[in-house]
Structures are given as C-alpha cells and as structure tokens.
C-alpha cells in the first residue's frame, strides 16, 4: 500500500534495475555474483579437506547455485 502511494514508484523494467543496481561497469562482475562464486569455491575447498577414508565413501557431490544466492549441496554415497 505504502509503496503504491509513493510517487517514487519506479516504472523501469525489473531487468534494468538488476543490471544497474550493483555495478557501474558492465565489464566487471557483479559483486553479488562474485561473492556467491567465492562461497562456492570455499565449499569445494572445505569438501577436499575430508580425510581420504571419508572421500572414498563418496560417489559424487552436486552443488547447485540458485538466485538469489542459495547454495544447495548434495552428497551421493557410493553404492556398496
């Protein structure tokens, strides 16, 4: 209600707002994206710290990065 009454309500398309909200430089990576990828890398790094006996039990790991940044990690055990 409040936002509807406001004369500051934007009429710009949403896509444009996303593009302009974070970065002035189109060539540079958006900082949200950069931080998300950085987090993903930390996850992989953390997984690789597992002891080898644990790693031997893992079939594969699936990481999924959704927007707005939500990270899903799914670990598939080896079928014995």
């Amino acid at each position, binding site marked *: 209600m*409040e*936002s509807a*009454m*406001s*004369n*500051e*309500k*934007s009429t*710009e398309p*949403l896509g444009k*707002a*996303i593009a*302009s*909200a*974070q970065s*002035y430089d189109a060539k540079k990576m958006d*900082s*949200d994206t*950069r*931080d*998300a990828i*950085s*987090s993903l890398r*930390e*996850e992989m790094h*953390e*997984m690789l*710290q*597992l002891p080898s006996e*644990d790693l031997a*039990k*893992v079939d594969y790991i*699936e990481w999924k*990065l959704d927007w*707005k*940044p*939500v*990270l*899903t*990690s*799914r*670990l*598939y*055990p080896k*079928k014995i």
Partner: protein
Amino acid sequence: MTFDYKEMVKEAIKTSQPATRVRQLGCHDKTPASVSQMTLDTTARVAPLSRCHHSSQASLAQQTYTRTHLKRFIDKWPARDQANKAEDGIALAGKDSFSSAFTAALGMANTTNICGLDDVLIKAAVFEALLEREASCQFASGSNANLRALLNIKESHGRESMTVSGELGPDNELRWTLNLRTTGTTWARLLCMIFNLSRMDALATLANILSMSFDNLSKLSSDRHAVELKGGSRPIEDVPDSLHLPGLPAGSACAELMEIRYIYGNAGQIIGAILRYRLNGNDFCLPATVGRGVLCMGKYKPTAHFLNQHLMDQHPFAPVIFFQDMRTALAFERMLGETQGYDPEEFIITAHLGTDLSVLPWNYFHGHEVVFVPAPTKVCMAMVKLYRDYIMGAWAQDFRIYPGFLLHSKPSCDLKEHVTGVTDAEDELLRGAVRLDTVERPTWLMEQVAKKGFSYDDFVAWGQKLGIFKAPTIATHLGTTTQPHALAPANPALTPERAYNLADVNLYHILRPGSYAVLMGAKGAGKTQVALSASHSIIKGDIMWPLFRGVGINAGNVAYIDAETPHDEYCANLEQHGLTTETGHRFFGLSRFGDDLPEFCNTFSLTDAQFREGLFHYLLEHKCRFVFLDNLTALMGDAVHQGKAAQEVLDWVEKLQQCGLCVVLVHHKFEHEGGIAHSDKARGSQLFIIRARTVIALVSRTEILREAVESEKVRSAAADDGLTVGVRFNASKPAPVLEKRTFWLHLPLGASEWQFLAATGADGTEIPFLPPADEPAESMVSAYDASAASENAGEAEHCELSEEERKVYEYAKSHGEVGTKDAKTQLSYGDTRAREVLQALAEKGLLVHNNKNGRATAYLVNK
C-alpha cells in the same frame, strides 16, 4: 561458513541416500543493498548487526591463504570524469571567473565546494579514511572472509616466501606484519606491499574487497530509492564524526562532522542525508545513503535528492527558495531553527548536491513558485539557464532569480569597504552580498529575496550590464551567415609584380593585400616599433619602410591590435610614429588595456571564436586593408603551441585574406634555454611560418652584439642609445631578391624614421645597397603630393651624390649639422676622407661651414 561435509558423509552412508544441505549465501557478506526495487525484498531480512554469527570463526582463523586467493580483487583507481561544463549555460563575458581580488574578498569558504567537495585530493583522502574504517569494522565483526584471508597469507616458493599476520589492537587499529620484518597499520599499505600496487590502486582494490566504490562517495545517480519501511524506525547511523585524512599537511588532517540533515522519503522514512563536514574552517557536504537499515557513506550508489523534497510534495502551493549552494541552505535553516522554527506553508528551503543536474528529481517543483539564489561564481551564475530549463520543464509556476549573493561563511574582509583590485561591477556585487550570520530576521530576508527576484530575462540583462554575461549583439553577429561586404578590390599598384632587383622592391612586395606576413623577433628586438613604423608608412603612402617606399596612393586603413603593451606606453608609441592624429580616420588601434573597447574584446584572445568574429566585422566595418596582430603569444596564450588552435587562427586569417586584407602576425622567436633566440624558428606552432608569404626575422641588439656582426657601423650603433635592428627576410615570395638578406637599421630614441646602417647577404658579408632617397619618385609625386615634390625640387643634386656624400648629407639633415667626427663615424673612414666628403658637399651648396674653428667646426644644412 561452510557445510559440515564429514557430517554429510556420515548421514549419506547411514541412510544410503544423498545428503542434502541448503543455505542462503550473502549472510556474512556485506553485499550492497540494491537501492532500487530490489530493496523491497532485502529489507525483509534481519537487521545487519544481528546477521553475523561467528561460531566458525575460531576454527577458520587457522586457515592459511595465498595471494592467488585475493588476486581477483585487484583493481585500478578510476580515471577522472570529465568535469561538467556549463557550456549550455548563459554565455559568459570575459574569463570564466571573477577577479582573484573578488574571490579573495568573499573567502574560499564561500566560493569553493559549492556542489559538494571540489578538491579531488581531499575527496580521495576522505574515501581512504572511510575504507580503513570500514575494513577494520568488517574484520572485527568477522563478516569479510577476504580480509581474514589477507591477514593469513602464507606462501612458500623457495626464496619468495611470504607470511602476513595481523590483528586489531584495543584501539581498533590494525597492526600487520609482513615476513616478520615489515610492519604497518593501514589496510591499503598492506595491499600496496603484497601486490606491489600504487597507493591509488591499492585503495581501489581495498574498495573492491569491501564492496565500496569511490563513485559512491559523491557521484549521484537518478536511481530511485524504494520505500524502506522498516516499521518507520530510524536507520542505524554509521557515519564517522571525524575523518582523519591521511596524506594532508599536518594540522589540516581532520574533518569534523558538523551536521546531519536527513532526506525523507514520501512515507516519512529517512532515505538519505546530507553530511556537513568542516575541514580547516571550510565546510563541505557529502551525501549519505540508507542501505539495509544503515545510514552510511561510500557503500551504496547515492541517489540525487533535493533538500526538503518531501515538504515540496506536502505543500504544493508553498514558494520554494532554491539555494545553489547547499551550505547556504543549511545555514539558513539553522537560523530559522534558532528563531521561530520552520513553517513550510510560507516557504520551503531547498538545495542539492552534485553538478549533474540531469539526475535530480525535478518533478518535485511542479506547481511551485521558485526563487533561485545563485552561488558567487561566474560559472554558477551561468548555470541559471540550465536550472530555469529544468524547473520550468517540470511545470513550475514561476522561476525567478535573486540578483545577488547570500553568504553562509564569513568573508575575508568587510565587503562594505572598498576592495582594491575589483571592477566596478564586482564592487557592486560585493556591497550587495548579504552575510547570513548578520541577519536578525531570516523570514524578512526571505521576503526580500522573493520580492527582489528577477525574471530570467531581467537577470540575464542585469548580468550583461555588469559584464558577467556576454551581450547579445555578438550573438546576433554570429547568427548571421551572410558574409559582410569584403573590401573593394585593391589598387593593382598594391600587388606589384615579382621583384628580382632590389631597386624594384616597394613596400607592397612585403605587406601585400590578400596575403599574410610574419614579423618575428626576440623579446625587446623592436617588433612593435618596426610594425608601427610600417603602419605609419602605409598611411602616408610614399615614405620609406624601412628602406622601401610606398607607391604614393591611398592604400586603405590600418588596424593595429596590441595585446601586450601597457596603455600609456601604447599611446606613447602611437605618438612617436605619428599615428595619434590618424586614429579614427586612417588608423584603428585596439589596445587590450585601453578604455572603451568594443564588446567583442572581452577575452581579447584569438582562440575565442567570438573575438575573432567580432574583430573580423570590426576590420571590414572600418575598411582596414592592413591589420597588425601584436603579438601571437599575447593574443593566444599557451594555445600558440597547439597545432589545432594555430589552424583555427590561420583559417580565420585566410578569411581575412579572401576579403582582400593583408595580415601581419607579430610573433616571438623560439628561444632556447637561457633566452638565446633561434634565428629562424618561431615560438609555438610552426604552421604560422609555413603558410606565410613573407617571413621577417628581426635580429635584436643582443644578437648583434653576440653574433659579432661584421659591420663595424652596425656594432657601434648597437652599442649606442636607441634601437638597432637587423631586418632579415627569411622568406619573401613576392620579392625573392630579399630572401636571406638583412638590412641593418637604427632608430634613435624617440625618432620615427629609421637610419640605414648596412645591408648584408646570406653569408653575412656586406652587399652594396643604396636605399632610395627619402623623397617620392616623380611619377608618384604627381599622383599623390605635388607640394611635397616642389619642396624636394631644390635637392635635385642630391641624386647625384656619391654614397659617402649621401650618408653624410642624410646625417646632417636629420641632426641639423654634421662635424668631422660625425662624418667619420658615418663613413667608418679616417679624418682626411671625412673632411673631403664634407668639403665636396659644401662645394655643391648642400652644406655651409659654421665659421667656427677647432672642435666647434661643423657644417649646417644649406636651406
């Protein structure tokens, strides 16, 4: 924070099913909140200070990193944006600023930082202080993993190992150690060291790590700020009370926060603020922005706002007093607050930050009557046109401008007293300026401001009257596309055929209508004297310049544009060369320092298109066939070195040539270090020389004495009083015979006629040259001045004199008498030969003995 993979493995093995974990990212990272619609979503999050739970911090503290981990953050300091120019504003007359005395009288505080913070060095220092503060804050809260990585770098590659460690002290100050040897206290310095970055690039990199941007400090944007309801609660203020600015001179390194003035959104929420800081007694304002419930600087792109814009919406009929300088608006509001408060029904005070008017929300002015109070600089006053366009474009009811200045800070002197060095118009402005701190009734002042407001047209006319804005007459000149009438075709006698013999050369081989000549010389060589004597010679029509006669016809008028000589000296020069009596008839002189100059002379610069246009019309209007531009350095400034500017001036010269004018460019020689002039090269762009038909290089007295000119007569004249000069023709297309020849002349102090000393060829050896006698040739006499011919008829024998006799007789005529010693000096002969020459002249009846003996012996001219 990462998932616990050990736990996940256990779970997966136990259940034989995939183990899944989900989390939202960005919880620990201070990614900038969007200031557009996206903010609506992000505001639903928990408050920023409660967001971080650092249970994992202790275990991660042991983790080590390499530089590779952080390399992606390395960034470059942004290049400077082109400053906004008021090109679309009202055209200014003269320079773009008031006189330095005027600016000094108003004080730096009133005349700088009008749109925010002008000084980019201070702005960068403010940003650096903010970065260091923010970095320590983020590190302390554990919210930035990259800062943690920065202080835990451990690399080992043989000799190139690197270890960084560091911590925050109890005073929240960073202390880092690099390779157990180097220590430091700032984040930027650490980045400089480990990545080998310049200071500015290190700041850009640190900003990148912190998700901050220098542009966010003051570059306003038009992105709308969405409503952040937050239950109406006030944002947390994260704004430093004092900024310790690094890199500034000691004693001037701390900016104190004086005032926070909130900007309210339409729902009554705070959406930003104007921060007024004070550094060394001078105030400047910076924008602060609310993002994620925190009021801060530098983190988010600041939105352009008007002060009290919400009041403008709430009171659509209230008049608006629009201050160009935010600080004046704030000072005025403080005064109102101290007295009786603020009734926005009566009027609303507004102002804005930044120079980019296009990003401001102008629609707030819809329906309001606006009175604009300009800031005290010419550039600001010129921008009134842009403000008018934006405000009236937003359907404001009315736009008026207060014709004067209101000052928020104390000026440096009493403005009611006379300030030396200011023009009359500036004096009037200073006397009319109002210091806000001396006003007892602010509402009365506002009534006066509203009452005295001029309409836009009246304001422009007022500015034109004071010489601030350009008068419209020039604009109409420029608007005309039709060529003004060119001069009537020149008399064919003024464009003589090529001369291959010295005897055939006349004045118009050198100064030829339809072409341009360059007269160059070192400083003090006598350029002005040579040029003025040429003007005199043209006007008289038949006298020598310097050794070549006119053709005895009215060659047209002469214009002399002097941009260097002080006015009294200029007048004395005209007197010396007999030009004063011709002024306004045949001679049209414009001296930069003269009074009553035409309007186009405001800049007096050939680089100014309007000056060129104005002068073009002036020359044609006064039927000037010849124009001397004395000199290019004074008329073009530094632009004389620029090929582009030279080309523009030469294009204009070409236009004059096409109209039948002869243009003489008086110019400086190129001087080496130590002031030694180059014989052929001109100062600045060589285009002027390349395209000239005639190039005359003057050899100055200094050069004569230094270069040991062969002729004894020239050397001795150079050592005497008066002006001795060598006129060397470096190029002479219409009279090739002159090329590489030098004619040595002497002008006694105060005299107007040159004395011929000698002529030398390209190799410096003397060549036989007899200047024509200083009388009109018979053919010219009949055409021009019969009375002059009759006067000279008695001197017919003069033509039959030998060269020596002629020299001595000339000397006697110019001095009234001649002694043996004088004759010796003139001829460079011994006593005997000098006496013989004198006796021969006496026998011919041209000289008579003065009947005195010994040293007093002399011969007088027989009249």
